[in-house]
């Protein structure tokens, strides 16, 4: 395993936290109640904090002096390795919650495994993050139940969100060839080991929430290989605005 392989692998985790954190930060001030605003912002802050830990590690691994911000803001779209799920827009509160839940459950299982990695830096980040993510999945799970089993309007909106976002779940378990090298070396982890568990868990909760689990076997992927949805360009245009407009300045 080369250092480059490892960096590539870490992007595959860290970029999810960045892009989901970015999506959630769009919402601050626009949620259904002050209480939910504050809660979702906490989740965004957790994710961005995790992003920083990963990027700081990457910055230590590189020899070209890249900082966490260079890593966050100066890559091209194709170099971001987040999954398509997290870049999906904040269509409505049902999408926001379902997107969160689909990601949180995966994220938690991933961190459980990552705690066993050979890489002490990654285990340290996982140890810290897993508590945060444990809370995220409770929060989003609670909300899926409330929206799914709430009113008929909320049920329909939730079903719609589940149907639309379901196609992005499979990609969570995708590994690139480089990822496989890192997994084989014992530094990375193979998410396939908990794939069944993942689908069992979310299906059980969806049923609990009176939501039908989609039967579709057609899935979308590409984000992990840097081939994103059309949304990604806009996310980056906004996120990188300052860095691109005023290159090489300190803020």
């Amino acid at each position, binding site marked *: 395993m080369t250092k480059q392989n490892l960096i590539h692998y870490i992007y595959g985790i860290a970029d999810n936290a960045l892009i989901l954190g970015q999506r959630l930060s769009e919402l601050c001030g626009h949620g259904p*109640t*002050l*209480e939910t605003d*504050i*809660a979702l912002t*906490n989740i965004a802050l957790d994710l961005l904090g995790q992003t920083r830990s990963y990027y700081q590690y990457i910055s230590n691994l590189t020899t070209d002096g890249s900082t966490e911000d260079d890593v966050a803001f100066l890559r091209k779209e194709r170099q971001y390795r987040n999954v398509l799920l997290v870049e999906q827009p904040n269509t409505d509160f049902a999408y926001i919650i379902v997107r969160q839940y689909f990601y949180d459950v995966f994220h938690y299982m991933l961190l459980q495994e990552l705690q066993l990695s050979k890489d002490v830096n990654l285990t340290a980040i996982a140890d810290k993050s897993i508590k945060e993510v444990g809370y995220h999945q*409770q*929060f989003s799970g*609670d909300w899926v139940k409330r929206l799914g089993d709430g009113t008929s309007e909320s049920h329909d909106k939730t079903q719609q969100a589940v149907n639309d976002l379901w196609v992005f779940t499979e990609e969570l378990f995708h590994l690139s060839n480089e990822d496989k090298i890192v997994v084989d070396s014992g530094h990375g982890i193979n998410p396939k080991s908990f794939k069944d568990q993942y689908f069992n868990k979310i299906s059980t909760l969806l049923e609990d929430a009176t939501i039908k689990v989609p039967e579709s076997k057609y899935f979308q992927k590409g984000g992990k290989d840097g081939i994103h949805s059309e949304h990604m360009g806009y996310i980056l245009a906004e996120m990188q605005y300052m860095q691109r407009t005023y290159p090489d300045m300190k803020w």
Partner: protein
Amino acid sequence: MKKNWPLWEVFVRSKNGLEHRHFGSLHAPDAEMAIKNARDVYTRRKEGVSIWVVESKYIKASNPDNNAEMFDPADDKAYRHPTFYDLPDDVEHM
């Protein structure tokens, strides 16, 4: 349907060994959410280790109009306090 989230009172224990103290209130649809919201609203700077919530409508309060009858009679019961009793200064450990 027009039904708003009820108001809850939040009590937080800052650390073990201390009592729960009233921190404020918030709105939530049910107890589970009230605890979560309280966690996010009132303990985001690590202010607590335990949270109680109770729907505000269940709190029964004494009526301040009756404060005279309620609380003033305790005013002149100085014998409930240690300073009421005269002891020589050289008596120790008491």
